[in-house]
């Protein structure tokens, strides 16, 4: 499942990204862009480096004066060698958050009039104060939205990576179903899934889970609860492969499904299909969410689409798990080659919280489902 690097295609992808970012910088009046990656939001530095990151803090820096140059900084020495080995940046420097001299010197040398910082909102005070001290005449603004917009439309190169991730997603779900048996604790399912997807090269995974009957109101991290016959086990499972996250949402029953669980599946499947049918280039996140929610409203279940019971009706995917929220009121347009999951996950009194959804790519005339796992109510082993 690893990616074979293709020098020509990689160079073209790098050039495409730098072109997009520089266009956005020009539109935003930025002389320099500094992408910050704390340990839990590395998507923008990854966009510039195409290298896995493990450091607690990393940066990528572009300046308007250097058309092809990207500098990378990291608190983890091994990251710098990994980044340099990938060849997407022109130089690498170690970073100390308490004495970030190399970063500060580079910025002071560039002396931008207007600097955009992606994930400015997460930049530690100790680094922000160093920036402001070193750049007294620079206007420092957030570039988080700028980078979100740049990453929204996936290139063919990125779509190819996400198709590879889809294979790991399908394998992760198979491992999930194979593990189900009465007496297994929830965290035992996670262990089985993690072993399966890491064995296929997954770098990371985001996963929530819930098991039980119609009393289940939402998903959390796993508990020691032991599975019982008839439980519906819900998950959203989101492996990351070669940088790209992709999610599947499914529910499975330990043993045979009840009539209520089947009726619940039918409802949620109809909502997923309505969401998929709404997809076309330029559709808004609001419209995709409304199409799903209308299925519930038509059955008098509209209250279960509110924040009292649920969060979003899906969200974007890419180098971050949770990009554009698919929610009513979000008028963000989803152009061709945007990738997101459609998941009407919520509680209803029919069978409790139900989880179902597929990741899709916006195509010229609709939606392409990226995974191959069947959309059905799975029934697990009874041993």
């Amino acid at each position: 499942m690893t990616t074979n690097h293709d020098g020509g295609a990689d160079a073209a992808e790098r050039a495409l990204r730098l072109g997009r970012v520089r266009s956005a910088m020009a539109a935003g009046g930025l002389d320099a862009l500094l992408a910050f990656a704390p340990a839990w939001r590395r998507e923008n530095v990854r966009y510039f480096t195409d290298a896995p990151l493990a450091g607690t803090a990393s940066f990528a820096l572009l300046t308007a004066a250097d058309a092809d140059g990207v500098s990378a900084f990291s608190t983890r020495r091994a990251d710098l060698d990994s980044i340099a080995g990938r060849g997407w940046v022109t130089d690498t420097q170690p970073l100390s958050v308490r004495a970030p001299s190399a970063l500060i010197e580079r910025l002071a040398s560039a002396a931008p009039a207007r600097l955009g910082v992606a994930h400015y909102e997460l930049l530690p005070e100790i680094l922000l104060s160093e920036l402001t001290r070193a750049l007294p005449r620079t206007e420092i603004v957030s570039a988080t939205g700028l980078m979100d917009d740049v990453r929204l439309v996936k290139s063919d190169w990125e779509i190819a990576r996400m198709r590879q991730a889809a294979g790991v997603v399908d394998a992760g779900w198979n491992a999930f179903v194979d593990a189900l048996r009465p007496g297994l604790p929830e965290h035992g399912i996670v262990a089985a899934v993690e072993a399966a997807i890491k064995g296929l090269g997954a770098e990371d995974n985001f996963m929530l889970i819930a098991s039980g009957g119609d009393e289940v109101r939402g998903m959390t991290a796993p508990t020691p609860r032991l599975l019982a016959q008839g439980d519906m086990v819900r998950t959203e499972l989101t492996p990351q492969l070669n940088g790209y996250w992709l999610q599947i949402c499914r529910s499975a029953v330990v043993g045979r499904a009840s009539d209520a669980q089947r009726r619940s599946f039918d409802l949620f499947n109809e909502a997923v299909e309505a969401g998929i049918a709404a997809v076309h280039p330029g559709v808004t996140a609001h419209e995709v969410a409304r199409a799903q929610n209308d299925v519930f409203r038509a059955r008098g279940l509209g209250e279960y689409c509110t924040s009292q019971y649920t969060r979003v009706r899906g969200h974007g995917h890419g180098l971050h798990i949770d990009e554009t929220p698919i929610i009513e009121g979000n008028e963000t347009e989803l152009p061709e080659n945007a990738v997101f999951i459609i998941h009407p996950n919520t509680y209803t009194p029919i069978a409790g919280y139900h989880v179902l959804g597929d990741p899709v790519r916006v195509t010229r005339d609709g939606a392409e489902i990226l995974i191959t796992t069947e959309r059905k109510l799975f029934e697990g082993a009874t041993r």
Partner: protein
Amino acid sequence: MKRGLVLFDPAEIPAGEWSDRVAAVQRELAASGTDVALIYGDVSRSDDIAYLTNLCIYWNEGILAVPAQGEPVFLTKLSPRVFGWMRLVSTLTEIRSGRNFAELVAKFLGPGDGGTVGLIEADLWPGAVTAEIRQALSGWAVRPLTGLVRERRQAPSAAELTLLRRAATALAETADGAAAPGLTDRERIALAERELRGGGFLDVFADTARTGDGVTSVQITGQYRYLWLHASRIADAGGASWPGALRRALAAAVAAAADGATAGDLDRAARPALGELPAGAAADIRLVHHADLATNGEYADYPADRPVPAGSVIVVGIDVRLADRTHASLAETVLVTDDGPVVLTGQPDPAEAGGPVR
């Protein structure tokens, strides 16, 4: 990302210990004239908050407000739908949510004549958040506080040590298994995930590294409950002779981890054996408090002459970088005692260290 077992078991850490921890912080607040301390955490580093409440921030960010008197309150952007679970797995009784931290803090403090709010380890908070809070709290003095919770976490309690020993046994066995001959890199990582998450670890970071001359090492960092451990092993020497020197160097560094030892002491102990590394290789002798493993020590500040007191749990490790920019590492989690170091995650050969290591 957090996806392992989150458990709050009063049999593991008694209720009195949880309340004592909060009370100790509150005494420090009162002594410094601070009315409320605020502690920031996100999904990647929230151990101060977990130490006081057992809460796991499994996603996003949050702030724990600890008043000089009264119960801590958690402020979060997460939906109230997850509050029930949060209460189930923590000591928290009150959780408040909203769209903006500054508004949440201002509402929590309420109207009044103001007072003093302390931001614990303010330099590591997102600067934008601290700016918003300062702006929202007109009438209040907002000042930075030291890492007073983190300092308390460095020396585990007896109950925590029991958990650490249990976790260390599992981590050591898993590291040995993952370093067994004949496995692929992915099989080593998959084994670590299966064993440790199946054994109740909350988080696992397993990775492998291979040097240009064929030395493979396995690094595993694990979080059990809210406590962290690390071990690195050589899985395959690849025909190179220097891993033996690396093992001797680590054993010497571990043996030097006595009460009052400094990072400099560990470095001096390990250096002689490292003379056998290949030409052009660089070695970094690492000392990381277990309390800082969420960030691998990269947000910490360890002066080379700061002593490590008995009772501390630290990771002693050596990272080697060869001239071709490839890496290898060896490391153990060590309890520093009055009687010397106790290796929690392994048992280096005493003969290699030139002295007994328990």
